[in-house]
């Protein structure tokens, strides 16, 4: 099975509405299990430790699928990869932020942030741009 086939199968499995459950032999550190039990019992973090574990696992897998699908797409279509500034602008629009109307400010913020932090993400850019907006106000 190659990467694309694995991704397709993961997508199929994660999109399945089959609610069948299974007991697994997955081993968890005892301390982690006990901390999760306390989080559920004392802080209502989830209906049960099983629900909490399944939700965390689903979140991690869906994030991996989303990131991998984008990475493989960029490999096949390099011009489709948005810049850091373009991703930040998209998030500003989704957030309904006034920054969505300031692509110039976001583009400059992306350059400034990326120059300081190689692993910066779009929210770092938005925070920087928001600060610039405050300063300019």
């Amino acid at each position, binding site marked *: 099975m190659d990467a694309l086939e694995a991704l397709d199968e993961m997508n199929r499995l994660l999109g399945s509405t089959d609610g069948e459950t299974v007991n697994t032999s997955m081993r968890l550190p005892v301390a982690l299990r006990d901390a999760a039990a306390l989080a559920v019992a004392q802080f209502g973090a989830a209906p049960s430790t099983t629900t909490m574990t399944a939700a965390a696992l689903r979140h991690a897998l869906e994030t991996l699928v989303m*990131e991998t699908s984008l990475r493989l797409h960029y490999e096949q279509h390099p011009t489709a990869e*948005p810049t850091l500034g373009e*991703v930040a602008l998209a998030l500003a629009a*989704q957030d309904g932020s006034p920054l969505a109307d300031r692509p110039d400010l976001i583009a400059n913020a992306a350059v400034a942030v990326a120059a300081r932090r190689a692993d910066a*993400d779009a929210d770092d850019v938005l925070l920087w741009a928001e600060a610039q907006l405050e300063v300019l106000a």
Partner: protein
Amino acid sequence: MRSIVLDNEAVQALADPHSAKHRGVVAHLAGAASRRRRGRVVTAVVPTAVRVEAAWDRTAPSAAAINRFPVRDHTLDPPAADVAAQIQRATSTGVADAHIGATVRSLSSTDVVVLTSDPAEIAAVCSSARVTIVNV
């Protein structure tokens, strides 16, 4: 939790790497991935009536590429069909847009975003729902 709903134009742009709007729609999914890395729950959904309008047949070999993006179907089940019919009657919109309105109303997300090329139409079908409409 945020749900990003795609309309016909957004699907068409996502499906075609040569579309002028492709990179813009991909940027929205990349933003979703970025937020997920920060622990936020963000999902992308497509109403099935939109898939019909966009001719997105998940079983077609030509759909293999777009199928890889984790965009989940929101089905037009009987309750959704009833809501969509009410929207259609009130707005005289098309079936796909009416299904978008029904989808927005049924999502449990606290935050719903619709990617569309027709903000006015989407505003009409989502009139009673809190939604952020993004022009693509």
